[in-house]
């Protein structure tokens, strides 16, 4: 495999990687370095965070799991300091050297900080990343007065955010008009009036020459020698391409890293994309063109040939509540332009389209931007406007639906991600989508700045017609087959007394008659949980591993992992395992991470015979259920041991084996705090102490490494069993399907769980339901051996030879 290294883990770079994976998932071994200590997040939404509309977790675009799934080696919090273009390797600030065949530089840009005295004082920041954002939020808790330097997009969004955080805000601007590069004076004055009414104060035509204060900023001084007070200064005058590492390594840099139409830099096999790149003398600062660049680059790298990138026209919108504006193309008239204008000062609506030779060359809309997609399309596609009515007739009373009906299929709805109306309609129709969430997922529309969401929503309403349910479209349903959330589904199952997966899908009007891989396993779980031992499991609604009671491997073979309660075995069992492994030519025999032995690479048709010869219960190494209980040697042999950890582990594993849970559950039991069974990173961990047991919960040793929290300390083994039963049952009843205990506890709160489990009566009731549920399980391997129908349906390979 070729080695691909990327410097910078931001929006443009990671989108490029997504495009590469789409084209050619197997071609590269990918390594990404990111200076920031986070996975790729939606920088655009920092404005919304500041304004209090969302939080950090919600703006992650590619969670760490995504990197894992795509086998991308990610180094966060690590900066590349040098590219050795001769040896083709990069060197990080931690001394790590990684070789590459192809290199992508996607280092973005930095806030431009005015080179004036005092710019390094505490309380002065740019507005670029999570750290800046956190700093501003913290400052707002302690300080009252903020000054934002810069009356452009970024500055106004920052100012609005700081107002929301309860600060008094002055905006300092060098020019006489706000957003002078995007707006003409009329639109600009309308904007200023609106923002002033929201509480912003403007200091226009002021040039800052010094930042005042000792350690921390106390104010600003302007060129006209006036001064203003400030506890916080946000510099939002612009961005500066981050070209340092490229420049130091001998790559040609002008304003940005100079690239050609294929995003190639001056050095072979090194490419640049995003805000760090300069293409035909332009450095772009919005995601739409950067995503286009990413597409071209992905093609260039994967296929060799690509459609050249010819530059982009960009449209701008301001993400401030109460302000509706759009701007694209040229702003100012010259001798060759003609304007088409509507100005309704009373309603605060202003629209101006600048034309030249019957073509639209510039758009400014204020107060009403619903024409923006249409006009932007006409501008980018260079449509002749003779005889076309530019603005919609105000008197026609045409509703949103008519707008959408008349919108051509190739009209761009999501500018950031280049998604057309046609693509959205097709996705809705062919995949039966009913919520905004689903549409975003399938098409990418709305995944960046989010401004297209109202339009996407209208298209959804229009496409679904009568079936559209506005409230439902906004919420998160369990999957695309329904609009019901988990809570609603559970309530419906209970009130309507639904008892089978099929019945649920029919009665609750699933739009996809037989469901999908998301809802069917979930419904099957919820039914089993609600109806305790009265529910008959729907095996065909389980995914392959649980259906087959064996883990499927990449080549279609399976693994067999028998139970070894508490990791304790006998010579006789080991012999049996060895004999079976030999007889069936098992390619790999390995100790698993869960203290037992796994046989890997088994053919499907050998499964029942092997199970029969092993004559051991299934270890459920494949299920959303109790996996293993790891134990340490404990008091029986270890001199430190205070409790019998093996005995407790075995009792736990025997009691809770086979139980269906929302996600897999692992346990560990140690007999002293040295914790040899690593019980501190298990879903439930038990640690023996003098005179009792500590119970730790919500630990996780996997992707989301998390130490367990102490739930309680109990005295006897019996108490342990009682508390564990209650805890597990409460998890089963309240977690979302596929929610690990660590996430569940974080969602509902440890204190809440403690409170519930404190009550003895509640614990008794939970344990009662648990015990009744446990009655229904039978050993699945044995069942398969006994039942020919199961064998024929699931474990037979029909081989037919055609006589030749």
């Amino acid at each position, binding site marked *: 495999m070729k080695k691909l290294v990327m410097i910078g883990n931001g929006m443009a770079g990671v989108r490029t990687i997504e495009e590469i994976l789409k084209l050619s998932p197997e071609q590269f071994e990918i390594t990404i370095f990111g200076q920031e200590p986070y996975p790729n997040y939606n920088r655009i939404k920092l404005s919304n965070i500041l304004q209090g509309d969302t939080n950090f977790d919600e703006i992650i675009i590619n969670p760490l799991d995504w990197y894992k799934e795509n086998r991308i080696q990610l180094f966060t919090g690590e900066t590349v300091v040098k590219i050795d273009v001769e040896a083709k390797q990069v060197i990080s600030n931690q001394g790590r050297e990684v070789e590459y065949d192809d290199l992508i530089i996607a280092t973005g840009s930095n806030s431009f900080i005015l080179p004036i005295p005092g710019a390094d004082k505490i309380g002065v920041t740019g507005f670029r990343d999570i750290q800046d954002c956190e700093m501003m939020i913290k400052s707002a808790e302690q300080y009252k007065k903020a000054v934002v330097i810069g009356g452009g997009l970024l500055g106004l969004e920052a100012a609005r955010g700081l107002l929301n955080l309860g600060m008094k805000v002055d905006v300092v601007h060098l020019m006489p008009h706000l957003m002078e590069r995007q707006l003409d004076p009329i639109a600009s004055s309308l904007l200023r009036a609106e923002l002033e009414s929201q509480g912003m104060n403007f200091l226009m035509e002021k040039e800052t020459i010094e930042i005042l204060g000792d350690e921390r900023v106390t104010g600003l001084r302007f060129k006209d020698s006036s001064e203003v007070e400030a506890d916080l200064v946000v510099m939002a005058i612009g961005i500066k391409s981050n070209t340092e590492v490229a420049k130091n390594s001998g790559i040609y840099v002008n304003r940005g890293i100079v690239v050609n139409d294929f995003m190639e830099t001056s050095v072979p096999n090194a490419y640049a994309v995003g805000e760090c790149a300069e293409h035909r003398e332009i450095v772009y600062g919005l995601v739409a063109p950067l995503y286009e660049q990413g597409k071209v680059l992905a093609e260039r790298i994967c296929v060799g040939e690509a459609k050249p990138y010819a530059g982009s026209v960009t449209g701008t919108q301001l993400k401030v509540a109460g302000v509706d504006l759009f701007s694209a193309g040229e702003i100012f008239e010259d001798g060759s332009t003609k304007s088409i204008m509507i100005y309704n000062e009373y309603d605060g609506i202003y629209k101006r389209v600048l034309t030249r030779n019957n073509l639209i060359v510039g758009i400014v809309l204020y107060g009403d931007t619903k024409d923006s997609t249409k006009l932007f399309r006409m501008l980018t596609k260079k449509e002749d406007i003779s005889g076309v009515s530019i603005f919609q007739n105000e008197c026609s009373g045409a509703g949103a639906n008519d707008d959408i009906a008349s919108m051509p299929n190739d009209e761009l709805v999501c500018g950031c991600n280049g998604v057309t109306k046609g693509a959205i309609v097709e996705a809705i129709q062919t995949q039966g989508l009913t919520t905004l969430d689903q549409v975003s997922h399938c098409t990418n529309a709305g995944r960046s700045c989010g401004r297209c969401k109202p339009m996407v929503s209208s298209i959804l309403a229009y496409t679904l017609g009568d079936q559209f349910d506005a409230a439902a479209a906004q919420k998160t349903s369990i999957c695309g087959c329904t609009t019901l959330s988990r809570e609603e589904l559970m309530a419906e199952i209970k009130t309507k007394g639904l008892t089978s997966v099929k019945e649920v899908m029919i009665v609750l009007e699933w739009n996809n*008659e037989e469901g*999908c891989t998301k809802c069917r396993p979930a419904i099957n779980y919820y039914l089993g949980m609600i109806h305790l031992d009265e529910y008959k499991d729907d095996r065909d609604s389980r995914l392959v591993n649980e259906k087959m009671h064996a883990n*499927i491997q*990449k080549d279609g073979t399976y693994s067999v992992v028998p139970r070894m309660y508490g990791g304790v075995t006998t010579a006789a069992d080991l012999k049996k395992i060895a004999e079976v492994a030999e007889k069936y030519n098992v390619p790999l025999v390995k100790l698993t991470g869960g203290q037992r032995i796994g046989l890997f690479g088994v053919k499907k048709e050998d499964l029942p015979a092997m199970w029969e010869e092993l004559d051991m219960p299934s270890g459920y190494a494949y299920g959303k259920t109790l996996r293993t209980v790891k134990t340490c040697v404990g008091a029986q042999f270890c001199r430190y041991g205070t409790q019998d950890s093996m005995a407790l582990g075995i009792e736990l594993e025997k009691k809770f084996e086979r139980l269906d849970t929302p996600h897999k559950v692992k346990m560990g039991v140690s007999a002293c705090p040295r914790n040899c069974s690593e019980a501190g990173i298990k879903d439930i961990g038990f640690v023996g102490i003098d005179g009792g047991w500590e119970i730790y919960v919500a630990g996780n040793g996997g992707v989301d490494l998390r130490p367990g929290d102490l739930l309680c300390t109990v005295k006897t083994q019996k108490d342990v069993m009682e508390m564990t039963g209650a805890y597990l049952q409460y998890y089963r009843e309240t977690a979302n399907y596929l929610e690990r205990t660590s996430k569940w506890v974080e969602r509902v709160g440890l204190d809440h769980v403690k409170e519930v489990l404190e009550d003895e009566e509640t614990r008794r009731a939970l344990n009662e339901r648990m015990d009744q549920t446990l009655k229904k399980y039978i050993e699945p391997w044995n069942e398969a051996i006994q039942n020919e129908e199961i064998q024929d349906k699931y474990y037979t390979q029909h081989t037919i030879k*055609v006589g030749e």
Partner: protein
Amino acid sequence: MITTLTRIPVVNYSNLKARAGYSIKIDNTEIALFKVTNGKVYALENRSPHPKGGVLSEGLVSGEYVYCPFYDWKISLLDGKVQAPDEGQVRTFKVEREEDIVFIVL
């Protein structure tokens, strides 16, 4: 070599359960046979078009689609087409039925 259409009897219809996949090997071709709820039977090459491959016969069947058990791609049983946002194509085989015998046409 002359290519001829061969019709190969593979299984008794009455033995097939709805919403289940069966893997059938005809010489060197592995075929996944599915019976769906409405009673129709479809045959596809038993290999996911995902670059990493894997069998389809163990996938979850929903209506006239099967979900690839490894990568969750949704594949039409009618024409073998992978549904958006993923892309790909699985080879399909014609299925015929006479009385209780199901044939695959190669």
